[in-house]
């Protein structure tokens, strides 16, 4: 288990950022989803002991987040959402200093800083002042600073904010590589669903400081037994018309047709209509929900 929170509440004056939140996350890559103001950043900061919870308890990597926050921060790497820099230093000093602040020796920290800067693709810029870095470079620099001490858990808070598509893809590739090939657990907070889907296996969805849903992404994207996606060799509206005449509902989506079967009908009906219409079915599968649908259904007011 990566972390668990039990009945955690955090308020800022009259605003409740976390509302009796109870959640458990397994090891691996966890996506933290939620609209703006849903409590994602507060949850991360609470986990790290950066802000005190008003109520509740919990563990992260087997350590009590209320009492062992210094020990937790030694084994967790955190790249905050905001643009934040140690001013007046060059890239390698930035990362080396971050390592020293965790407790690495000066020599180890700087040796490691060079390694991780190469890893994140900032090897050429390591002696440039960090103030001169582009937005994408700053995100990768924050990532390098977060992994310099080889943490067990890496927390990325909105890491792709403000990045161009190429930079975003590079960062996602790094996050994916760390989580899937390097054995580092990952908590990836974002409101960009494709980013979470590209990197994570599990997802936690927050809304108004409460847990809306959580689980394995593939399991959450449920299979619909009465809804199918069909692609024909030649697109033809007659095929859909015929299915609708038989009681199905059909809807064209890109090059496919999304068909809902009526009660009592079986997928055999597709083959029969195709034979009647002299059509070839090139693709047929039960439809599964997208992460967007999972997210929207979770955050939708009941």
């Amino acid at each position, binding site marked *: 288990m990566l972390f668990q929170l039990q009945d955690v509440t955090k308020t*800022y*004056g009259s*605003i409740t*950022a976390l509302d009796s939140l109870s959640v458990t996350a397994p090891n691996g890559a966890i996506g933290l989803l939620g609209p703006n103001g849903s409590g994602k950043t507060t949850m991360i*900061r609470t986990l*790290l002991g*950066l*802000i*005190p919870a008003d109520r509740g308890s919990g563990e992260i990597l087997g350590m009590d987040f209320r009492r062992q926050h*210094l*020990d937790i*921060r*030694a084994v967790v790497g*955190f790249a*905050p959402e*905001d*643009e*934040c*820099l*140690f*001013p*007046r*230093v060059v890239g390698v*000093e930035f990362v080396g*200093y*971050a390592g*020293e*602040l*965790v*407790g*690495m*020796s000066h020599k*180890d920290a700087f040796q*490691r800083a060079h*390694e*991780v800067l*190469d*890893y*994140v*693709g900032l*090897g050429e810029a390591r002696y440039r002042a960090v103030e001169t870095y582009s937005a994408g470079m700053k995100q990768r620099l924050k990532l390098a*600073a977060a*992994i310099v*001490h*080889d943490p067990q858990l890496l927390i990325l808070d909105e890491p792709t904010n403000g990045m161009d598509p190429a930079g975003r893809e*590079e960062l996602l*590739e*790094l996050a994916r*590589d*760390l989580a899937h090939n*390097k054995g580092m657990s990952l908590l990836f907070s974002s409101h960009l669903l494709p980013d979470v889907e590209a990197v994570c296996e599990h997802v936690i969805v927050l809304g108004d400081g409460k847990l809306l849903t959580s689980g394995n992404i593939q399991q959450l994207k449920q299979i619909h037994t009465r809804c199918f996606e069909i692609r024909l060799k030649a697109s033809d509206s007659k095929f859909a018309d015929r299915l609708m005449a038989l009681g199905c509902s059909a809807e064209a989506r890109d090059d496919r047709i999304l068909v809902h079967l009526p009660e009592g009908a079986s997928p055999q009906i597709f083959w029969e209509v195709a034979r009647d219409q002299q059509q070839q079915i090139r693709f047929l599968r039960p439809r599964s929900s997208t992460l967007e649908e999972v997210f929207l259904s979770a955050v939708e007011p009941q």
Partner: protein
Amino acid sequence: MPIFDQGYQHWSGELAGHTWRWMVITRQGVRIGLKNRFVRILLLVAWVPALMLASVLCIWGLLERNSDLIAPFIGILRSLFGPQSVADPQLYRIDVWTICFHYFLQTETRFSLLLLLVIGPNLISKDLRFNALPLYFSRPVRRIDYCLGKLGIITTFPAMILILPCVIAYLFGLLFSLDITIVQDTFGLLLMSVLYGLVIAISAGMLMLALSSLSRNSRHVGLFWLAILMVGAIMATVLEGVDHQQRIHAYRSAAGNVQSRDAIATAEIEASRTDWRPLVSYTADLSRIGQQLLGANQSWEKLSQWLPPNERDVFLLKLVGPQFPWYWSAAVLLILFGLSACILKIQIKSLDRLK
């Protein structure tokens, strides 16, 4: 080429404990501070008085050994410290050393306040401006570590010009006197000088840190610092001047303008023992603590004994500083320290706020 071609290696080293984590912040800050050319120049200039201090101590050591090398300096030493001290240098050794250290530390106090103006404003305000606090506090760094680390930076630079030269000059003085009893006589002075240096560095450093945490704009912090020093000094001077003129007027009216100069000087010294006005000036408060720690006033009194009684008070009035109780200044410095600590506690808390 994929950007992760270089690969990622796991690291299995040991992490140090939390106790000395603040030292990392101090080391980094000092390293960055020393990269500033203006700071380096200021440090070099500030070490010139240290050369003078070391020179006087060495000359005094040679005088104690009746060396012919110092014959050209005898006249200067007589005019500075009086003929009786040159005639018996060992007897007046501690007083001469005290006066030398006191002058040196007074000069260096001004340099250190200037150095703080160059180093200090950026320390926290720049972290606030670049939003660097989450980078510190998301690592095993506590607020106390952060503040101690920053205080370490801001005390290191004044210590370089206050404490380090004192110790080096002291060692030179020992080497040139070649008399083991000098350690017994003067070691207390060295300790008090170091203590005074620490008082200046920590008190001024805390004040500057608190100011630095109040604004994201370093220039505002610098201006505020100058205002504290200059406005305080100007106010103290004006208040003292007005009070002095009132007293002079009172003496003249009371005695029909016939009081002698030394009688007025005696009365002025007496009045200065309860005059609170210098307390308004931060530098005067530091200076009063220095006088007390080093015992400069007692040394001046001893060195002035050769003067005729009617000239003594005039001499002392010129050379000794404020006479009000030293604990008044200590209280002012302690209040400022506490206030600075409170400001830091409130300001260095930015993660527990809703954006």
